[in-house]
């Protein structure tokens, strides 16, 4: 046995241990979702005394006239528009910064990167005032329109990501396309976009997960239960100041976890590739 494989073996043991620690909270949630509510926090046991499937039927039943499935559907509708908007806008802007010469490009790019450091919370009140004057409150417009303008959740980061990726594509491809008579937009559409598939999948994935997990913005901008997304729907019945049945709540959380988990697992290959080729870790 040479030293490299031995290193690999220890490496695996070490990674498995860390992996178990990381996955434990999720595992606990899934197991607790099958536990009778009164056992969850009170008994020290890890496995339930009986498996309580009714937690799941309870979780899926309607609350305040809407069920978890309505909230899931709402979230998918929102995700569809947000992700399309984000891909279209960030790839265009990223392409612009990477390939198109225009005045003040450096300064504008610096400002863009600077805005990465600005926490969302700081702009919350100004955004609320703006959207409320535009009469966009209680709709999905505060999420969809910014995403089409590359300023939705993670927009700046995505521009940066796409920009870095496009810079790694050889300029000669653009030149030969231009000699063949392509306009700049055609270069974007026919050369750059197909080659940027991996990074765009990364963007779509991040956008999906961040919108899925976003609680604060959705809480502030959406009032009507009919328009609630999954993250609002899950929190709607959680009131820590009174008695709650944790079993169904954790069952609902487990259901809500499925889409983002499966999307991530399916797209993991592209995801890792997209991050690796841009040389960024976040």
């Amino acid at each position: 046995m040479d030293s490299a494989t031995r290193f690999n073996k220890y490496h695996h043991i070490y990674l498995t241990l860390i992996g178990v620690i990381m996955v434990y909270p999720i595992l606990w949630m899934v197991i607790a979702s099958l536990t009778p509510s009164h056992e969850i926090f009170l008994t020290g046991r890890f496995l339930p005394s009986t498996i309580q499937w009714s937690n799941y039927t309870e979780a899926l039943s309607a609350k305040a006239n809407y069920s978890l499935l309505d909230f899931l559907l709402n979230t998918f509708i929102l995700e569809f528009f947000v992700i399309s908007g984000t891909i279209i806008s960030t790839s265009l802007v990223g392409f612009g910064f990477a390939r198109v010469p225009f005045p003040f490009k450096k300064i504008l790019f610096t400002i863009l990167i600077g805005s990465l450091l600005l926490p969302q919370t700081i702009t919350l009140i100004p955004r609320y005032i703006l959207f409320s004057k535009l009469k966009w409150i209680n709709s999905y417009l505060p999420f969809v329109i910014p995403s089409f303008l590359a300023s939705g959740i993670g927009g700046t980061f995505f521009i940066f990501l796409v920009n870095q990726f496009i810079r790694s594509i050889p300029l000669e491809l653009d030149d030969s396309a231009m000699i063949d008579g392509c306009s700049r937009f055609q270069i974007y559409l026919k050369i750059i976009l197909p080659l940027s598939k991996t990074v765009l999948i990364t963007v779509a994935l991040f956008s999906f997960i961040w919108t899925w997990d976003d609680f604060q913005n959705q809480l502030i901008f959406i009032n009507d239960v009919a328009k609630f997304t999954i993250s609002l729907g899950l929190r709607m019945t959680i009131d820590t100041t009174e008695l709650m049945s944790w079993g169904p709540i954790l069952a609902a959380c487990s259901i809500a976890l499925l889409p983002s988990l499966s999307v991530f697992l399916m797209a993991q290959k592209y995801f890792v590739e997209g991050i690796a080729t841009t040389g960024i870790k976040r």
Partner: protein
Amino acid sequence: MKKNNSVRIGLILIALFISSVSAFGTGVDEAADDQSKPVQIRFAWWGSEGRHDATLAAVDRFMEKYPSIVVKTEPQGWGGFHDKLATQISTGNEPDVFQFANDKYMADYAEAGMLYDISDFIGSIIDTDSIDKGTLGWGSFNGTLYGIPTGMNGQTLLYNKKIFDEAGAAYPEDSWTWDDYEAAGIKIAATGKYAAVDFSTQLDYVSVLIYQMGGVIVDNNLQVVCLKELTKIYEMAERFRAEGIFPPMEETVVHNTQQDNYFVLGEAAMKFDWAATAPMFNTSLVDGNLGSIGIAMMPGSSEKPASVTSLGSMPLLIGRNSEHKEEAATLINFLINDPEAAAILKTVRGVPVSSKARTSLRSNLSEVDAMVFDAVDKLSAISLPAPAKYRVTRGGAANLGTIIQTEGEKVGFGQKTPAEAAADAVEQMQSMIDKAN
């Protein structure tokens, strides 16, 4: 041809953008300007499933009764409720009627002038005759009435009948003095179980004890004036720990939440807590103890009757920027006073504040709910509101609680004498309040 293609894709992008805009329309429904259209008001509250279902049903009944008013409901969980409300209030976009956590936020909001004074509607639209003055006081700040509390609650002595039976001790009575409490405690401690959960590290209970001794934590000049009382409480707790009435501090610090404490685990016989938590404990006491809960007034209540706090919680407020304040007041009055609303809402916001609603509900209550109603009736007879409690909330009551807890734990761990710990706690609370004001 190629050019055409890219134009076409460009058009598709634009179409997608426009469709996304039109798909959702504009968010806010147009205001009902002409008279024939019903007036629309928004109503927001937090809660869990039971409260949501009952409140929605009550609102439906309201809309049947008042066809000219349409109520848009906005049920939410507790987390984030007041963050959202703060954003809405600061931009003039708050709901017409909303539930409010008065014990935590009333002082800050009222002093910032963000709340609406509803006293104009009292008597004309909102009937408060069946609400006792002490409870109503919890909807006001500095003499101005901002909201009508919906639920009543107060600190009581909860006990586990099973442990008392096993020890052969008599159940706690409303007339108990602190000596009776200690005597029963020693009897129970002899059986190997603990008599009570340590209350000396919890602001909620410490503050009640301080009021009972005739003091307040913070006076109206924002001075911390509870040194003598706090020293006594820490001394008493130290004695109770030595007698085995309280568990040792090492055990108290690891079992100190509502979900995990020695009372709920069936290891301690008594706990101070809000009367309305009794049904929760009754169903969540560990195996073998289910259904054995009892409620009594706190020890010493019969000697110092006016010193126990009763809380009128979750008041309903009218939005300062509401354009339909009369309709909002009509909804509040319906939810508080209408017998039909009381029949639907039952106890989803605690024991109803209206004595009429309490009487009408009494006939079909579960045993434990009836105990809570009795306890609240007794509390409302002997209680006065405690204005000092409100002062405490300013600048973060949670921080005062942390100080009382940390210093109380130091006594329990033998690091400080009760007098030292109380002096340090008072000093820290004073500097905290000075900083915040």
